[in-house]
């Protein structure tokens, strides 16, 4: 199954991309996505426990994904 991963702000700058598609095995979790992203160049600048979202809602690492899900790795928010 395929999921889309979104990166923003400082994380997008660190990894040099704003999105990527990942092929995952059925039953893969948000934590698995994070593991794949950590293998990319520049990912050493991600913190140990970044905020995560699935389909525009905050989610935990244990969340099991479905094909087509949109996973976002969210830098510390700074609106206002």
């Amino acid at each position, binding site marked *: 199954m395929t999921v889309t991963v*979104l990166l*923003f*702000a*400082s994380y997008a*700058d660190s990894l040099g991309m704003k999105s990527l598609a990942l092929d995952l095995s059925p039953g893969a979790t948000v934590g698995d996505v994070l593991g794949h992203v950590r293998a990319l160049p520049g990912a*050493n*600048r*991600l*913190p*140990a*426990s*970044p*905020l*995560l*979202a699935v389909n*525009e*809602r*905050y*989610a*935990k690492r244990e969340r099991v994904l479905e094909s087509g899900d949109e996973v*976002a790795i*969210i*830098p*510390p*928010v*700074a*609106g*206002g």
Partner: protein
Amino acid sequence: MRTAIVVASIDAARLAAEVAGHHNGATVLFIGTVRDVNDGRPVTGMEYTAYRSMAEREMADIAREAATRFGTDDIVVEHRVGVLELGDASVVIAVAHPHRGAAYDASRYVIEQLKARVPIWKLEHYDDGTREWVGAAGSGKGEAGSGVRDSDLESAHASLGERGA
């Protein structure tokens, strides 16, 4: 009730008019503006970016929560994205209520929740020509993955989880 991410400048007076009504005795207007200094560094401008669809969803959630908690549907919130200059309004919150206490409380609730939850980021431009993401790990306050930053994120994540994310 209305919330939006906008690109054009925000007309605060229009938002105040939007929440007005004869049943209300108080209107609280909060205007967040771009400041000329942050952490002692002179700031010349600011660039806001958002995970727009999620930001709009979170802002709508926050407005609904405030409506339920404080008993008014007369809440309008606009947050601007793009390049802003000093003094520009980045966020405007208009709340009207029959009574001032609840109007103030609802306004405060919206801005505090917005700053904690809505996926918006700002790239500060400094007078020496450099730019940094506000709050980003490794932005001049130690390397990414430092103990302080990690614990901040974990507690933020935990509190978000408790809200039923």
